[in-house]
């Protein structure tokens, strides 16, 4: 069922793009994080990381559902029934899980960026989104605390933890800001009060926010995204492999009930 919500068609198109981007971000990072289930460095940590991954998939599900109300499609169909190039997740989450340092570095960069993005949607004039964001932000406090704790632990673990962490941050640096890749139709969303501020401003705020902790731990702060125009459209081999995995069973019969 499509809900009208009284939206202007252009605004609506921009909103659908925003929801898809956020849903895909959570979906893809949730998948990578869920790979640690059963193989994390410590049994207790295994359970913790798995909860975080499940939360992310849960957030993706909520965003796909909201998008589905706008475009009349089933959330599972939106998530699973498209080719890899139709995904709109940012390059930051496109990278595979790699090792624990990489996962933690990427989680921290993503969580802090997502926090800024969510804050800019907290008072969205699109009420269903504001409501969903309020719930998600409450769950995210746990994720942020966990990611920050591990960032510190690794940064202070000399030499090996720190070396791996710094190496991971260097690999991720060109892609960290892709969370803030400007969306098509963004000016319409800002004008309609759906998104509080443009992505470029949010990126600056995010980078400033990283400073205190990164200065304290003497970690390099990522700069602007390399190749921003493809920030949400260039997908690597790792993601294509993942796509093969998460569509494997469904593609046996996409119209069947699983």
């Amino acid at each position, binding site marked *: 069922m499509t809900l009208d919500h009284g939206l202007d068609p252009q605004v609506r198109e921009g909103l659908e793009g925003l929801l898809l981007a956020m849903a895909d971000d959570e979906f893809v990072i949730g998948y990578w994080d869920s*790979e640690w289930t059963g193989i994390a460095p*410590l049994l207790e940590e*295994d359970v913790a990381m*798995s909860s975080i991954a499940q939360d992310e998939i849960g957030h993706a599900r909520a965003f796909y559902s909201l998008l589905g109300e706008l475009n009349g499609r089933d959330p599972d169909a939106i998530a699973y029934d498209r080719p890899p190039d139709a995904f709109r997740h940012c390059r930051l989450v496109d990278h595979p899980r790699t090792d624990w340092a990489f996962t933690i570095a990427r989680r921290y960069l993503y969580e802090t960026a997502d926090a800024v993005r969510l804050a800019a949607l907290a008072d969205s004039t699109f009420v269903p989104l504001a409501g969903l964001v309020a719930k998600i932000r409450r769950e995210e406090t746990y994720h942020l605390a966990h990611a920050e704790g591990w960032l510190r*632990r690794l940064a202070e673990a000399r030499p090996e*933890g720190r070396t791996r962490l710094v190496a991971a941050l260097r690999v991720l640096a060109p892609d960290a800001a892709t969370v803030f890749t400007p969306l098509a139709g963004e000016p319409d969303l800002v004008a309609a009060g759906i998104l509080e501020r443009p992505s470029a401003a949010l990126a600056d705020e995010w980078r400033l926010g990283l400073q205190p902790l990164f200065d304290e731990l003497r970690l390099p702060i990522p700069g602007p995204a390399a190749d921003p125009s493809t920030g949400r459209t260039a997908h690597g081999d790792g993601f294509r492999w993942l796509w093969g995995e*998460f569509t494997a069973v469904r593609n046996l*019969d996409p119209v*069947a009930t699983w």
Partner: protein
Amino acid sequence: MTDPLALDPILPPRERTHLPHNDARLSHDERYRAFEAHVHAGGKIEAGDWMPDEYRESVLRFVEMHANSELMGVLPEREWILRAPTLRRKLALTAKVQDEVGHAQLLYRVAEDLGKPREAMFADLLAGRTKFHNVFHYPTHSWGDVGVIAWLVDAAAIVAQQALRDSSYGPYARTMRKICWEESVHIMHGRDVVVTLVNGTAEQFDLVQEALDRWWGPLMQMHGPRTPRDKDRDIYWRIKAKTGEELRQEFLGIYVDRIRELGLVIPDPDLRYDEAESTWRYAEPDWQELRTVVTNHGPRSQARLDFRRANLEETAWVRRAILGAPATAAA
């Protein structure tokens, strides 16, 4: 649902001096007899109590194999976490595998409090000195396996686990109660997957039937060969309450009808309920296969142990980093 785990704190390491077996002034034999009497009267043993060596070793071996099985049992299922065909199934399967890891944690904790460090248990598992249950040595081929494992393998495990909720070893009994409460969701998830498939296309139905054809043998072997109750030392010490055959009968009593009502065929033409003897009759399980498999010669035994070994090596640096100490050989 109320968590049945609601006992007062029992904290190691001090001994509970008012129990005779804990009285250091008595001879070993007197303490042994007092211990026996306590256990046979339904008394509980805690981590800090005096125990005969045989009891301590038996409990540790039992708990350790259980913990190992949870840890290894994660591997066949986690392959499908990425492949789950809907968002809800993905969440459910991830949560289920997470629970298995959580159960491994709970059980390794019980064993650790008996004095064996986690790293030593991992080392013994990887070296083949300790075992894990047969069902986790087999491959998974399809989403049908995911349903059959979550429903029937878990059901067979739960039948065993419920019989352990009153184990004489207190920490283990309490852990089993928590585990049984958590497992109840898994069987429901598994059954839901299976029922959805049998109600679907012909190909989906075949996925389940084919999986059932492969898993029935290992399922029937899972509780072990028939052994006389009076020779079972784990029953003698009340570590467990039921024999393997009793558990198998219980499993069949509940699940044969539930499988057949879905239109699935159980691949044992001899399987029937003998009204006169009030017992299920079945084709003799392949005990040779069981022996081969649990000694780590099953189809996936070595591959999974290798995977675990590699994973522990890859993540050793993390443990070193947060513990500030050199990693031991297996961690």
